[in-house]
């Protein structure tokens, strides 16, 4: 193994080689698809041609750029809804973990909330919050609440006997045990809950849009579908995928940074950072 | 080159033999084992002892047929080893029981793989569980058994096929000392009773000497057989023999060999 850094050209070639088979497969699929529809093998009413989808994409994203407003509205609905749901869920979870009676009496209602399909509340939420973004955010918040609550609570309540013993032997107070042991230990599960919650928040936002809305990618997709403009509908679906990917990778990023001790690459980086801080402090 | 305390290939039935056996990994960059030569007589108990990386587990896997040597050859019962075979049975460090099967069903696993177990097979399995002292747990699931008990089930499974060559890869390494000592005694009793030939890998010097007729001391980087020490202590061996002078001389011998390289 040479110690020389791999030249940039080599690296690009490397990445290229890895992606090439995928690109080829993709091209083949699109090609076969286009031909099937063009020759009438598949009816173009239900399944649009890739070229039609492409023109729709160009129109929505580039020429007229109508999609961006809706994109950001749905993204905002999902994120704000998630934030509210997460805020409430984490607070309740922390409270439940610290006060047993509270936990006991809140749990039945949390369980009821869990078993009920949150989607069922959509019409009610819209009746309560109106046709604007409020109802989307509300549904997103309600649906994302439970997974975050459950995961955070489980994370906070889980007990590592050895560690508890250590803290006891050091004479740590309850607050210290919470701050220095329970809370950090709960982070991995909390983030697992966040990931699920974020996904469900997006679903909530989109479904609420289906039911009643003027703006948002959900509405746009719905409208295009019922105009039988399948190509535009799929082009809009693409933006939903993008939202999903943005949300997922943002959470992954946060997870990686905050719960850094789980991945070797992050551990190494964090070690170096700590060493630097120490050295800097030692100089003073 | 291998140093022999005493030639192993004395008169008698040699059931496992290796000639210049070597194994490298990663296109030759990692030499796990080199130049291993051995002849193991029927009914003997051989321990392989050494630090991590000395190639003892590799050697065991080569004999079992799970991996192929890069150089040299291994023969069992006079035929070369080409892969796992019916006359060899192996036990691993983790009990590796299937948790959806009862103890009895776990013991029957090797028989099942070789065909449908007959009534005789089932009775044999029950007898083996009795032999390892677990007849009351024949219908228990692994999750209901302690680590030591699980290893005992694995031991019964090892014996189920009636193979006369038994390979054991640090089977008691994860257990506490008391359970380990107890199982060591049991193992010796059982191996003697079924008259099998055993090759036992461990990193515990006491265990290696206590169990064996011959101790193969292996050193690492690269993995080689450094010395073969005969253990002429009486059988059956009581635990108390571990405090005797002869025993401790042997321990010293092993340590010296390990330290010297």
């Amino acid at each position, binding site marked *: 193994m040479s110690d020389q850094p791999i030249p940039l050209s080599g690296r690009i070639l490397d990445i290229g080689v890895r992606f090439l088979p995928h690109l080829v497969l993709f091209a083949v699929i699109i090609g076969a698809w286009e031909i099937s529809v063009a020759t009438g093998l598949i009816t173009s009413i239900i399944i649009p041609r890739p070229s039609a989808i492409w023109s729709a994409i160009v129109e929505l994203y580039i020429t007229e750029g109508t999609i961006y407003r809706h994109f950001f509205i749905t993204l905002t609905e999902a994120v704000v809804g998630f934030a509210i749901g997460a805020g409430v869920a984490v607070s309740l979870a922390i409270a439940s973990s610290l006060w047993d009676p509270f936990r006991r009496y809140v*749990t039945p209602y949390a369980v009821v909330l869990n078993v009920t399909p949150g989607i069922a509340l959509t019409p009610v939420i819209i009746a309560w919050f109106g046709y604007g973004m409020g109802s989307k955010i509300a549904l997103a918040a309600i649906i994302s609440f439970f997974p975050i609550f459950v995961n955070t609570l489980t994370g906070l309540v889980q007990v590592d006997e050895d560690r508890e013993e250590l803290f006891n032997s050091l004479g740590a107070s309850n607050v210290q045990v919470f701050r220095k042991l329970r809370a950090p230990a709960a982070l991995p599960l909390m983030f697992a809950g966040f990931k699920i919650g974020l996904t469900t928040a997006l679903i909530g936002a989109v479904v609420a849009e289906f039911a009643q809305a003027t703006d948002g990618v959900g509405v746009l997709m719905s409208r295009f*579908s019922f105009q039988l403009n399948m190509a535009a509908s799929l082009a809009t679906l693409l933006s939903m995928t993008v939202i*999903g990917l943005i949300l997922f990778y943002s959470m992954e990023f946060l997870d990686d940074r905050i719960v850094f001790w789980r991945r070797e690459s992050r551990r190494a980086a964090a070690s170096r950072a700590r060493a630097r801080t120490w050295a800097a402090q030692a100089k003073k | 080159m291998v140093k022999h305390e005493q030639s192993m290939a004395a008169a008698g039935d040699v059931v496992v033999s290796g000639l210049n056996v070597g194994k490298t990994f990663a296109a030759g960059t990692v030499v796990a084992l080199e130049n291993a030569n051995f002849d193991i007589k029927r009914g003997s108990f051989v321990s392989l002892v050494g630090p991590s990386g000395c190639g003892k587990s590799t050697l065991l896997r080569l004999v079992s047929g799970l991996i192929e040597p890069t150089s040299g050859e291994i023969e069992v019962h006079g035929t070369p080893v080409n892969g796992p075979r*019916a006359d060899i049975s192996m036990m691993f460090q983790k009990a590796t029981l*299937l948790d*959806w099967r*009862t103890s009895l069903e776990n013991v029957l696993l090797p028989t099942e*793989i070789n065909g449908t177990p007959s009534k005789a097979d089932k009775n044999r399995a029950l007898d083996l569980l009795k032999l390892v002292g677990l007849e009351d747990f024949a219908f228990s699931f692994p999750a209901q058994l302690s680590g030591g008990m699980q290893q005992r089930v694995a031991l019964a499974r090892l014996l189920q096929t009636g193979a006369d060559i038994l390979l054991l890869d640090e089977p008691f390494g994860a257990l506490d000392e008391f359970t380990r000592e107890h199982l060591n005694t049991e193992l010796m009793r059982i191996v003697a009773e079924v008259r099998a030939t055993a090759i036992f890998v461990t990193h515990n010097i006491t265990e290696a000497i206590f169990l064996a007729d011959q101790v193969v001391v292996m050193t690492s980087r690269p993995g080689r057989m450094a010395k073969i020490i005969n253990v002429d202590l009486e059988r059956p061996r009581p635990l108390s023999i571990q405090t005797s002078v002869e025993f401790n001389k042997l321990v010293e011998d092993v340590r010296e060999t390990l330290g010297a390289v």
Partner: protein
Amino acid sequence: MAVQDATSEALVDTLERSLRNRRIAKHVGIFLTLTLLWELGSRMGWLDPLFYPRPSNIIRSFWLIYFQNANVWFHLYSTISLVILGWVLGSMLGIGLGALVGFNTVIRRFLKPYVIVLEATPRIAVAPLLIAALGFGVNSKLAIIMLVCFFAPFINTLSGVINVNEERLELFRSMRASKTQILRKLVLPDAIPVIMAGERLALTAALSGALVAEFIQRDKGIGSLILVYTRNLNMASAFACIFTLTIIGFLIFKGMEKLDHYIAYWKYEGGRERMSAKRKRTMVEP
């Protein structure tokens, strides 16, 4: 990579334990108190009936929809039958493809980017598209349900098939087991718990999928019923339907739990003991 939801079981466990501990009286007490306060507040005009339908009205609605008008049964049947059918078909497809992809490294590699994209997209969002493409009616509803409950079983089966314990594989190889034997005796039983977890998620998703389809189509089913009642501002009846779904959701939860205890028995102490006794009985008989 597997989608797990084991933590909510822990919560229900806590709940059940506290119920058993004679605290059930306290729970019931608190619940009744809250309900009475609510009722009182509503009668006094403090609580807007839009947001806080009167409990007595909700109870009356239950009576109406279940017994007097008995209109809920038809809709319940419509929703539940579609959910079950869609769940069975969708999850079977998911398991089948998951196993297929799991066994084939090449296919897996090529499918990976598409799976990532599929995972990020909210599957339920495709509902309007499917309805427009397949028309209003059972077909599109079924398609939506199948789509939403395909994914979790697919991912879980894939994961279960890939993540076989190395040591167990070595054990089987040392016993000269054939590929089929490894599949039948190791991979399959090992994957069962994960597959069951995926099935649970799929069933929950199927119910949500059905509801969304009904919201859009508005023809029949519990979802349509909720929509109609809400439109007419009959919040009491809407809530009665929502609580019906709570009951259904709870039954699904309990039902899947029982099924899991039966199929993946070795993960549960009760299941192990039950199986032990059963195996003992069948062995002892000549």
